[in-house]
């Protein structure tokens, strides 16, 4: 005997025997049985076995309890899998929700971590500079880890005024200039972070120039030695 005349419908054979088709599919398969000798022979030959499989309580009990999908018989891993990835629409699956939350949190984490590195730094060495007129000893700034802090005191400084910070080497060469320096507080103190990149080891003269002041006014000068 030749094979099924329409394998696309013939493939539903066992599902039909087990009553696992919809009404429309069953009807379509039954119409197929009227035409296809091969499928009709197979179905009628397996009739009693199919009845037992589909309807006998003892057989069904065995299949349900002993099968890998039987209730209460699942392995632990399968239970865990079903807990985090249950058979619900994709959008409601908890594992997906956890993943989405992690994806959303990650940029925040990166931002916080980046901020830590950028804004919060530990500077161990600080020197306090006073106007050259009032001190004789040169303060020495030791830069261990790339940066050092210099606290400048200028008794005549105004808080909102923009000064120009000029640093010259011992030989009189300008090595650093910072215009619009508006960092003095009401007490005349200002903190400047000095990088080793700008000021290598050597002796320097630091000047606070007020662009609006006349040429007669001598700007305050500070000695600084970087070690």
């Amino acid at each position, binding site marked *: 005997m030749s094979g099924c005349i329409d394998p696309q419908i013939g*493939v539903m054979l066992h*599902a039909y025997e087990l009553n696992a088709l919809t009404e429309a599919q069953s009807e379509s398969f039954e119409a197929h049985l009227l035409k296809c000798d091969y499928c009709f*022979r197979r179905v009628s030959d397996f009739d009693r076995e199919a009845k037992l499989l589909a309807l006998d309580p003892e*057989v069904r009990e065995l299949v349900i309890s*002993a099968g890998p*999908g039987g209730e209460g018989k699942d392995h632990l891993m399968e239970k865990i899998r079903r807990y985090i990835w249950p058979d619900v629409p994709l959008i409601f699956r908890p594992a997906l929700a956890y993943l989405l939350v992690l994806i959303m949190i990650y940029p925040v984490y990166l931002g916080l971590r980046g901020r830590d590195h950028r804004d919060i730094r530990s500077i161990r060495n600080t020197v306090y500079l006073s106007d050259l007129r009032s001190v004789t000893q040169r303060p020495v700034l030791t830069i261990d880890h790339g940066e050092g802090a210099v606290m400048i005191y200028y008794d005549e400084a105004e808080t909102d005024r923009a000064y120009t910070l000029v640093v010259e080497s011992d030989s009189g060469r300008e090595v650093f200039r910072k215009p619009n320096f508006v960092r003095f507080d009401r007490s005349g103190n200002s903190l400047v972070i000095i990088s080793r990149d700008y000021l290598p080891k050597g002796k320097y003269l630091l000047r606070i120039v007020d662009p609006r002041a006349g040429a007669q006014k001598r700007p305050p000068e500070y000695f600084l030695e970087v070690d």
Partner: protein
Amino acid sequence: MLQKEEMTNLLARARTGDKSAENEVFRHFIVRFRYLAKKKIWREDDAEDIAQEVCRTVLEKYKKGEIESELEIWAIGVLRNKIGNYIQTSQSNRAKKSTWFDEITAGDQSHGGDMVHLKEKLLKCLRMIIRRYPRYARVLNLVSQGYSAADVSRRLGIKVSNCYVILNRGRNVLAKCLKTGQV
């Protein structure tokens, strides 16, 4: 058993009034109608009545040319209507389904004995198959719990056609086991 072309030829002859062709078409359909009716109502005598009635109706309508759709689809529709009417006028289908095994064993001792023997073999084979073919066991399990093939495929995340293939492969293994006793 008739090939498709032979069937078309026979139907054409039956339509022209050829009695032998008509009888052959009748024999072809009655076997199938009887099987399908019995599958649904579980009573052999009633299934036979329904099958004969449907067969006569189909042939008469066909000879008169009153069938507009495909013959087989129309015939199944007629059969389903008859079965539906039968079920409505008798007791509920559920009650019949629950007693089918008792009826067979009580009605025909030798047949019932066969069924008991077959059931033992089936249980033995199923125990082996469940261990060896977990995919079939999984699908069969869900079908036994009342899920349709479409539901099963959704639950297992596979295509419906794959679900049918798994079922058919499992069925072949089961049939072989019932014949040889081995998986």
